[in-house]
């Protein structure tokens, strides 16, 4: 494997552009959607922002969890790589950082993330490259994914069920990115305002 400088990404914090639902003013339906009681304190601003529309919040959250955490099928690190590919195309920095970090944790290696941050897709394994390139092509509007992308995934040993898992991981980030990036902004979690 090509040797690259290791890149470790620092976590970001997300802030909404629109006022989130205040728990004290939330309707029963919104509280039920967030699965919290009015006395609960720690519900993220992201959850409270989306709880303005409780129906879609519940349905999407359940589908998201199934796609990213369901057992068997495509290994979780590969789903994270699909999420990262989509987030890069869609310009969601917050999602890109979260899922790059999860990929590094799950794969116990910074290699893939370092290669992508350094714009060195040539340094990826053939399998990772097939996953990443399919993720990017499917995320463009309209999709540019073609038979060659599917053939590359199959040539690297992915089964139909694994490819279906991958399509869902990429597509659900076509969704998540279109919420997270347009509805808020992100900044580094730890203040780096140190005196020079």
């Amino acid at each position, binding site marked *: 494997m090509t040797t690259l400088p290791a890149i470790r990404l620092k976590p970001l914090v997300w802030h909404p552009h629109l006022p989130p639902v205040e728990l004290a003013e939330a309707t029963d*339906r919104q509280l039920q959607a967030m699965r919290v009681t009015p006395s609960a304190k720690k519900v993220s601003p992201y959850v409270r922002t*989306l709880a303005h529309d409780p129906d*879609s919040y519940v349905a999407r959250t359940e589908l998201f969890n199934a796609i990213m955490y369901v057992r068997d099928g495509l290994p979780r690190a590969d789903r994270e790589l699909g999420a990262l590919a989509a987030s890069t195309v869609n310009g969601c920095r917050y999602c890109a950082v979260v899922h790059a970090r999860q990929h590094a944790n799950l794969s116990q290696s910074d290699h893939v993330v370092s290669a992508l941050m350094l714009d060195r897709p040539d340094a990826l394994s053939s399998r990772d490259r097939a996953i990443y390139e399919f993720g990017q092509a499917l995320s463009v*509007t309209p999709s540019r994914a073609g*038979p060659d992308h599917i053939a590359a995934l199959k040539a690297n040993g992915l089964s139909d*069920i694994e490819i279906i898992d991958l399509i869902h991981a990429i*597509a659900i980030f*076509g969704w998540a990115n279109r919420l997270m*990036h347009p509805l808020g902004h992100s900044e580094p979690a730890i203040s780096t305002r140190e005196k020079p």
Partner: protein
Amino acid sequence: MPNKVHERPDAIDLAADIAPGSPIFEARAFRPEFVEGAEACRRAVLAPEEDLGLSSGLRAAIALRSAVHNKNTALIERYGADCERHELDVAQHELARGADPETLTGVHAALASHTDMICLRPREARADHLQALLSAGLTVPQVIALSELLAFVNFESRIVDGLSLLETT
């Protein structure tokens, strides 16, 4: 009926032209939570129990405009049929069919511009785009519902494109 196993072929099988009995048709059965989940999401964004003041007809019009950007023939046909069923007014019809935002007025112009950006150039989104929707008269809950609807159609288009590629490759 949240726990009912959804009948197949479902809307995604039909849009992706996945034939009952084909290997991909059978492979989708391995993930009933994906099949059910996508269906529950479709209901939640197109015909929710609480519509927050965004009618099903307007939602169908926005879905059709999004499907047009994704150049997804099957979804264009389906959302086109939805629009016909809802008997859209002239402005909604223009919005649905992809009219230039500059030829529309008021809230329809704002909805058209936002739909175009979120579908085609989501990385360009900034806070003032949300302000434009609020200035055009949308409430905060309506902006959230609109965001979920637009993002859903982009999700669905990718599922349909990906699965139909897999079915034919």
